[in-house]
């Protein structure tokens, strides 16, 4: 049995089933993210592990112990909240010491442990400060130290970076990961931010409507999405309307230009379909493996630092194409005619049913990005 084992969890609020027969295994020392849009059940799942909600069906085991019916204060799980939830009446030291005092640690040991935790979060000199005298990032560090001080069997983080601004978010994200690695603590991290999930985790579980659509390493999730929803939720995705020319040979037509798909086509689904291509799968110069190409007019050039994103209009559809930035790169001007090269394998056809799904996911993703 894995260190944390969720088996067939169901949670119903009123007549809304928020989590549907969800199973999840987390190995000891693993960092796993639950990723999904709002209302996908990720936070509810985390809160059931923490004990703040109780599953209507299924079991939860932590370190071999069935925690069903166990109150949150008996589970010994460290929890970090989106809005820090530091005790405003206590200074940083007393916040961190809170759990230790309850556990009945003596004064010397508590002091030693608090010093150690302040060291871990790099805030040794902040002990006497009160929460309102700290920045958001500092408050969240203290919350992390407070949760870790009790030496919990696992760490649960509920959107810990959502309330912070972008720069601090990036730094704290790296800090959380390096502290987690150093302590080797099993961690479950809830987020709606796909970039955050991919960059921080050993494994990512993409959730939607109360089920896990796919679980895997960030590499697997990004490069081999198992469902259309995952492929659209993770990363930027171009969706192009296409027509089947020859299903058996995988020949398609996009805006009057013929291309080949490396993935099988379903001839029974009719001649209309959509294909997806990731922006980084396009190349401005092609070689033999990128045998497909599409021509279009440059509608926009976005300079994103390490990446240059061209928006190319192909038959009325705006398509994003990314190139790595390099001093030698010649960036096309607006209105230039360019050819985007890509390999047949990079072009994934979508069944019509999945297309509606995909559109929903893209909209959801866009909404989450705006919110974040």
């Amino acid at each position, binding site marked *: 049995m894995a260190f944390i084992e969720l088996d067939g969890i169901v949670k119903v609020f009123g007549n809304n089933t928020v989590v549907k027969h969800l199973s999840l295994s987390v190995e000891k020392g693993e960092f796993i993210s639950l990723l999904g849009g709002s209302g996908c059940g990720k936070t509810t799942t985390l809160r059931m592990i923490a004990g703040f909600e109780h599953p209507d069906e299924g079991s939860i085991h932590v370190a071999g112990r069935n925690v069903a019916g166990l109150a949150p204060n008996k589970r010994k799980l460290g*929890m970090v909240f989106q*809005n820090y939830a530091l*005790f405003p009446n206590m200074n940083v030291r007393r916040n961190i010491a809170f*759990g230790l005092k309850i556990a009945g640690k003596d004064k010397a040991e508590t002091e030693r442990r608090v010093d150690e935790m302040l060291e871990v979060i790099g805030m040794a000199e902040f002990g006497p400060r009160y929460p309102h005298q700290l920045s*958001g990032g500092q408050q969240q560090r203290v919350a992390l130290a407070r949760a870790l001080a009790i030496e919990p069997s696992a760490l649960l983080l509920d959107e810990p970076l959502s309330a912070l601004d972008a720069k601090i978010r990036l730094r704290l994200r790296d800090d959380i990961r390096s502290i987690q690695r150093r302590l080797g603590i099993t961690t479950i991290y809830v987020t709606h931010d796909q970039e955050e999930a991919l960059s921080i985790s050993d494994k990512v579980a993409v959730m939607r409507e109360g089920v896990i659509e796919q679980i895997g390493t960030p590499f697997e999730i990004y490069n081999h999405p198992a469902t259309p929803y995952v492929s659209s939720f993770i990363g930027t995705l171009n969706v192009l309307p296409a027509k089947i020319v020859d299903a058996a040979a995988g020949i398609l037509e996009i805006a009057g230009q013929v291309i080949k798909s490396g993935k099988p086509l379903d001839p029974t689904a009719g001649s209309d379909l959509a294909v997806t291509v990731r922006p980084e799968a396009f190349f401005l110069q092609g070689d033999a493996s990128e045998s497909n190409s599409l021509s279009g007019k440059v509608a926009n050039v976005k300079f994103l630092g390490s990446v240059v994103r061209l928006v190319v209009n192909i038959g009325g559809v705006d398509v994003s194409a990314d190139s790595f930035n390099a001093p030698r790169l010649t960036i096309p001007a607006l209105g230039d005619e360019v050819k985007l090269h890509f390999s047949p394998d990079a072009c994934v056809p979508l069944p019509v049913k999945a297309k509606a799904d995909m559109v929903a996911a893209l909209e959801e993703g866009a909404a989450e990005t705006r919110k974040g």
Partner: protein
Amino acid sequence: MRKKTGLSWLWFAIGMVYFFLPLLATFLFSLRGKKGVLSFVAYEHVFKDPQFLRTFGFSLEMAILTVILGLVLIVPTAIWVHLKVPKAKPFIELLTLLPFVIPPIILAFGLIKTFSRPPIVLVSSPLLLVAGYIIVAFPYIYRSVDAGLMAMDLRGLSEAAQSLGSSWITLLFKVVLPNLRTALLSATFLTLAIVIGELTLALILAWPAFGPYMALMGRNLAYEPAALAILSFALTWGSIGLIQLLTRGARDKGAKLGAVTH
């Protein structure tokens, strides 16, 4: 723009005069106990009257009991409502309006009628008076505590405390109550101020309280009631000043609530 500020100062001045003039008149009147000179002789009479001390002491006792029992009853209720049954909040808020809508005289007769025969006979006990006072003070206590709870992230704090192993008792005494300090202080002083001067309940339930004493004085004497009125004003304002003073202390110590800064 200047004209506008000038106008608002004028209104402010009119308001102040409207409020302070009668007070000043009462004060001056209270100083006229001795013919021809201004003196504090009326105040001397008040303090020398054994009835004054006795009734004031009784009312203070009742007020303290009301504060203690009221807080014990209402604070956990408010916390419970916030955490567990937030849907009941509008209902409780409606209840807090009842003491304003139902005249105290009705409340008093209701209490007498209900508790003067078995199974519960309480009319001869001052506890019935305290029970009545708790009802009268309920809106003030509940609203103060409610505002205090709204100002803190009660759910977040309680979940954080629980995940750190805290029991409900620890949560209440180490986290919730310290952060409710300001709210509890204002609830306490408001209750004290209201109960000490309360007339109707004390009169009808026939207890030798400060309110009825003041009313009696007002009927029989001239200068002493004015002195009493000034004294009770001073008491109320003293209470409010104390709230300010003590809560400022709390802020300086860093117990500022709901501070989320980046």
